[in-house]
């Protein structure tokens, strides 16, 4: 709990007193300086007014033509001069100035034509010194400048600063005569001193008042504001354990109440936030997947227990590490580039491999998201895929083994059929009966058609299907070649579409074709004159397949019904087409024999 201590209160008060005092002192000094300046200016103005009045009055008293009548220095009688001096003394006394005089400037010389008898304040010594000083024509130089008017000037002498006025005139002879008056300004010193004393007194009173005012100001205004400010600052850094004391000042009290409400709301909000964070932390820690929080320079700043267990590092060790310390697939440069991509894109999902503390590796699938708050952070969820990958590899290997096994099965079946065909060949050699040999040859061809299916399945990538168009084409060519006595006599016309079918369809189709093509080769072209066999294969969009075979021979003999009169071969064809394939058979025997077998592919399902 933080409150304003007594020491702090005293400190605030002292600072306030010092501050106010300093301000008052500065103001007082400034006021005093300004006052002295104004007073000095007033004094000079007053002095100038008195001097000007005295000099002008002296001129009026002497008469404007007084100097016109002075032809030389002896033109004024001593008696007259003594009267003038006495009158000037009087004037000086009543007008409170020091000297009053007039001079005539003749040929660069100065002749006093009137004056005072003595310095009224120091009659013993001043008079002689004054006239001695003022006998110097240079001292009247400002008034002798061409066009010069009344000239005021300040001088210094042994009694201090003084002020004088010179009023030049011209007499009728063109000579310059000057009326002057002067006084010591020291007579005003007392007045200025009083002014300074008053100013200092006012200043001291102001300081005292400032000190007296600063105490309640500090106690009732500054300290509460300071306390509220400290409270707000503490709340800003998350410390809500503060006391907000009530204030006697209504506005401050209102502010205190508002801060209190804000504290309550913030405390509740922070409690909820803290609880949410704790829950989130607990979830992350208990998660099966690893979790990282990473700074933009790749430093791990948060990690959960799951990743610690995955990697073998402790949390403390990981919090001192960077991504390249555990990343095993990407180089440091790659990781930096990847991080830039994530920051730019905002998220990513990728597979990688990490290095455990013991040097072993584990596969990781990582899902990352970039958040730009607080300078930018990357959140990563890391799923250990080592077991899954091993399982995938095991499944792949098992599948490959089964595929190899199945291919080998087809291969063996085909080879065994080849051996059966060899046996039939060998057996046929031993027979003298041509019908029996033909029967064995037909059987061999039937087996050959099946063996071809197994060969094509073995050669293809798909172990359950083969291209029916390719199969029909190759099978018919082999059958025709084996029967032809003279190559080229039998023409084959093909209109075969290519599409894959299941082995369950290919084998019956092969057997049907073998029977029908063999029949055509045996019976359609008697006498070896040759002819044409036409093959068609079409699959509709709904999966219906049509297989057609026609020859250019004479057709069935009159009255021949293949269903009724056909031998084993044709019965086999009908059984395979209608029963095994579940199809329909259309037969035409006019102008050549034509078979059209149609069936639904959808009746068959893949078994592997």
């Amino acid at each position, binding site marked *: 709990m933080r409150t304003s201590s007594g020491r702090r209160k005293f400190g605030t008060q002292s600072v306030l007193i010092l501050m106010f005092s300093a301000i008052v002192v500065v103001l007082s000094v400034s006021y005093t300086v300004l006052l002295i300046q104004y007073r000095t200016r007033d004094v000079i103005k007053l002095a100038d007014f008195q001097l000007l009045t005295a000099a002008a009055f002296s001129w009026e008293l002497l008469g404007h033509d007084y100097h016109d009548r002075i032809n030389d220095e002896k033109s004024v009688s001593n008696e007259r001069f003594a009267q003038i001096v006495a009158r000037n003394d009087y004037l000086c006394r009543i007008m409170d100035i020091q000297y009053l005089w007039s001079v005539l400037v003749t040929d660069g010389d100065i002749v006093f034509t009137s004056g005072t008898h003595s310095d009224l304040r120091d009659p013993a010594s001043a008079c002689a010194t004054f006239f001695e000083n003022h006998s110097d024509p240079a001292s009247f130089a400002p008034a002798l400048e061409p066009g010069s008017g009344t000239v005021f000037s300040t001088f210094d002498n042994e009694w201090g600063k003084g002020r004088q006025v010179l009023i030049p005139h011209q007499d009728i002879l063109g000579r310059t005569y000057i009326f002057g008056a002067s006084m010591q300004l020291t007579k005003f010193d007392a007045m200025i001193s009083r002014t300074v004393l008053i100013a200092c007194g006012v200043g001291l009173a102001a300081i005292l008042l400032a000190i007296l005012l600063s105490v309640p100001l500090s106690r009732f205004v500054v300290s509460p504001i300071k306390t509220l400010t400290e409270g707000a600052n503490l709340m800003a850094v998350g410390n809500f354990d503060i006391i907000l004391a009530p204030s006697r000042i209504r506005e401050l009290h209102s502010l205190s109440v508002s801060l209190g409400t804000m504290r309550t709301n913030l405390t509740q909000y922070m409690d909820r936030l803290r609880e949410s964070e704790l829950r989130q932390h607990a979830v992350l820690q208990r998660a099966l997947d690893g979790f990282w929080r990473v700074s933009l320079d790749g430093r791990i700043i948060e990690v959960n227990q799951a990743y610690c267990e995955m990697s073998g590092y402790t949390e403390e060790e990981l919090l001192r590490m960077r991504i390249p310390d555990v990343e095993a697939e990407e180089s440091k440069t790659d990781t930096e580039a990847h991080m830039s991509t994530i920051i730019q894109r905002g998220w990513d999902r990728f597979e990688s491999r990490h290095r455990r503390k013991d040097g072993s590796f584990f596969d990781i699938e990582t899902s990352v998201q970039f958040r730009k708050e607080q300078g930018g952070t990357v959140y990563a969820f890391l799923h250990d895929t080592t077991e899954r990958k091993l399982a995938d590899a095991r499944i792949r290997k098992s599948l490959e083994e089964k595929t190899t096994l199945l291919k080998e099965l087809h*291969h063996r079946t*085909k*080879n065994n*059929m*080849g*051996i059966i*065909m*060899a*046996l039939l*060949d*060998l057996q046929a*050699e031993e027979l003298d009966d041509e019908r029996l040999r033909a029967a064995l040859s037909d059987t061999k061809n039937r087996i*050959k058609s099946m*063996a071809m299916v197994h*060969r094509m399945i073995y*050669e293809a990538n798909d172990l359950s299907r083969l291209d029916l168009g390719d199969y029909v084409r190759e099978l018919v060519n*082999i059958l025709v*070649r*084996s029967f032809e006595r003279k190559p080229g006599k039998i023409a084959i016309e093909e209109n075969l579409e290519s599409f894959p079918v299941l082995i369950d369809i290919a084998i019956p189709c092969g057997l049907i074709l073998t029977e029908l093509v063999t029949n055509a080769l045996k019976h359609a072209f008697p006498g070896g004159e040759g002819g044409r066999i036409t093959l068609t294969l079409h699959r509709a969009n709904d999966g219906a397949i049509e297989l057609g075979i026609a020859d250019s021979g004479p057709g069935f003999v009159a009255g021949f019904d293949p269903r009724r009169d056909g031998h084993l071969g044709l019965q086999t064809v009908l059984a395979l087409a209608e029963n095994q394939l579940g199809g329909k058979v259309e037969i035409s025997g006019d102008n050549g024999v034509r078979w059209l077998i149609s069936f639904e592919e959808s009746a068959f399902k893949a078994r592997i």
Partner: protein
Amino acid sequence: MVAIRIMVVEDEALIALQLTRALTRDGFDVPHPVAAGEEAVVAARTGDYDVIIMDITLRGAMDGIEAARAIGAFSGAKIIFTSGHSDDETMRRVRDFHSAGFYSKPVDIEELKKTIRRIM
């Protein structure tokens, strides 16, 4: 006219017998077939064969293509391969050898006879 002398190298006895009898019946000189690559090499050194019908998958350490290479080092006999395997690797090896022919099993014997007559 001297008959074309043919060696049948085949580890399936019935297939070998079928080929031997079918070719002999057509006038070819086909001595007793052999079933292993090593036997074929030995027989080729002494038999002066014109054509060798060589199965690729044979019993023993040497397969048909290896036996054919060994025979090719000392004999001018034409080699016709037969095989139940027609995978890419087998076909590549057959092409690399530049044989006189290749027949996938079951062998069409009539076609085989035509090929023999054509190359001789």
